[in-house]
């Protein structure tokens, strides 16, 4: 099946209420189809209640809906057991859970291997461990914006306790071979963690095939509500881990003197859960499945193909990402001219120089005037900005409801912007 954006768009009320809106910021967050919105309001209007404990009908039904959502997520990512699915707020919380719990066992001098293309959410939680003398290393990115697998391999050593890497870069679109990376980790006795925030929404993802130890993603980037995210973990590993947050629902037995923990996954779900979020995520998965994840991937691939073909209609455009469509998700970061990092010395000593660059914020503001929503900035990947030698970039990230005509409009508008504000 191929994706029909024009038809799908009708499922998303936001486009009805914002006629002509060209929404190209899907890597940040996606829009919600009516079926997801309905699933959430139906829950409020029929069986809203506390799950797991209530001995009354609506609570039993809410519990069933919540646990069915867990089963659906489990199947969707190829997990063999729903107990391996922990509901959390988002990818960020999932990676923090891992850094706090796995981090406890690390000793001074132990190493964590990341890559140069990580999102802040897969950097800062690990930075916290530096206080304990943990060393953070980065596998290099190559000139073609792909990961240097050899460098990754070389940096894996007996001290490498954990490796955490993104599946798809939210800036470059680079698809990393996480199966290969997980295999290297496993051979080295290193725990592997996949940041799948930009892959699960956009392509088939199968944890059993990848063979990683943990994998995390967010509902809001895949048509579901915000406030719901997922940590997948191998059951035996989850069972060995200490809990992260303490409170109701995650306990076995509690006295004034101590406590035992509930079984996984509940051990990690302290406090009242976001049941409506889980139900919304389940509805989002139904929607994506009805399209087919292969079709979603193919659509984005053809969108990217189109982008790379017509980008040069805009003068001075520079893009940041692999040119091989097989190694690239539907993310396109670019600048018009050079948007260099600030450097006081060079800037203050030379007289102000006219350049052909347009700052990404100005691009975004101009395009907004034409009802085109794009992202500009550091994309929560500041170190990577430095690495690719820019202060920031502009980015578009199409999804199932975007079509080529929108891309054409986007590039026409870019050219118009260049005329209007280049200095």
């Amino acid at each position, binding site marked *: 099946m191929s994706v029909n954006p024009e038809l799908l768009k009708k499922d998303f009320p936001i486009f009805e209420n914002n006629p002509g809106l060209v929404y190209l910021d899907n890597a940040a967050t996606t829009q919600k189809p009516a079926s997801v919105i309905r699933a959430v309001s139906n829950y409020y209007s029929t069986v809203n209640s506390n799950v797991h404990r209530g001995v009354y009908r609506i609570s039993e039904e809410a519990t069933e809906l919540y646990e069915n959502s867990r089963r659906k997520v489990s199947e969707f990512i190829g997990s063999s057991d729903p107990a391996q699915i922990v509901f959390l707020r988002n990818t960020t919380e999932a990676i923090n859970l891992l850094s706090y719990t796995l981090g406890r066992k690390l000793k001074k001098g132990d190493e964590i291997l990341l890559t140069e293309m990580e999102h802040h959410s897969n950097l800062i939680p690990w930075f916290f461990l530096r206080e304990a003398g943990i060393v953070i290393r980065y596998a290099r990115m190559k000139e073609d914006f792909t990961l240097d697998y050899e460098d990754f391999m070389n940096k894996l050593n007996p001290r490498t306790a954990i490796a955490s890497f993104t599946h798809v870069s939210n800036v470059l679109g680079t698809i990393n071979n996480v199966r290969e990376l997980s295999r290297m980790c496993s051979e080295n006795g290193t725990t592997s963690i996949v940041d799948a925030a930009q892959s699960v929404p956009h392509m088939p993802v199968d944890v059993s095939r990848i063979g990683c130890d943990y994998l995390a993603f967010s509902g809001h980037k895949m048509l579901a509500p915000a406030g719901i995210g997922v940590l997948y973990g191998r059951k035996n590993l989850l069972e060995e881990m200490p809990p992260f947050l303490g409170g109701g629902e995650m306990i076995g037995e509690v006295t004034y003197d101590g406590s035992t923990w509930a079984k996984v996954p509940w051990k990690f779900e302290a406090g009242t859960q976001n049941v409506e979020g889980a139900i919304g995520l389940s509805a989002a998965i139904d929607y994506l499945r009805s399209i087919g994840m292969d079709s979603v991937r193919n659509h984005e691939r053809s969108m990217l193909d189109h982008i790379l073909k017509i980008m040069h209609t805009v003068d001075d455009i520079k893009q940041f990402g692999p040119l091989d469509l097989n190694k690239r998700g539907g993310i396109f970061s670019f600048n018009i001219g050079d948007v*260099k*990092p*600030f450097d*006081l010395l060079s*800037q*203050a*000593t030379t*007289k*102000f120089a*006219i350049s052909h660059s347009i*700052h*990404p*914020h*100005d691009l*975004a*503001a*101009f395009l*907004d*005037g*034409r009802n085109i929503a794009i992202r*500009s*900035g*550091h994309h929560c990947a*500041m170190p990577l*900005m430095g690495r690719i030698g820019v*202060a*920031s970039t502009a980015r578009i990230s199409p999804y199932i409801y975007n079509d080529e005509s929108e891309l054409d409009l986007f590039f026409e508008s870019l050219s118009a912007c260049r005329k*209007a*504000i280049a*200095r």
Partner: protein
Amino acid sequence: MQEGNCKMSDDVSIEIMLDHYRSPRNYGNVEGASSQITEHNPLCGDTLHFSIKVESGIIEDIKFVGQGCSISQGAASILTELVKGKSISDAAAISEAEFLSVLGIQLGPNREKCALLSLNALKKCIESLHI
């Protein structure tokens, strides 16, 4: 930025801002500055460096260099013109609302930060005079 997300209450203001962006006034570094500072908005990378020369409480000279969007850079240029020759207490007393109304462009909450970067940097620069 005729079509920007500033709700263009005033096309003239936008033209002025763009003119300042394209041809920044007081661009550079004051020699023998009494105080200087580099400020940036981490959220978007906009950066400004101000240097000022103060004599008897008066801003005798002020210059900036910077990098960033038209709003942050244009506003910085406009600000230098606004405060040059003013007393440091008058300059320090300019409120955010006042400065935004001088700029005359309606900005959303996220881009207001760009416009206010220069004002905040200048205030810090003045504060550091007393340290």
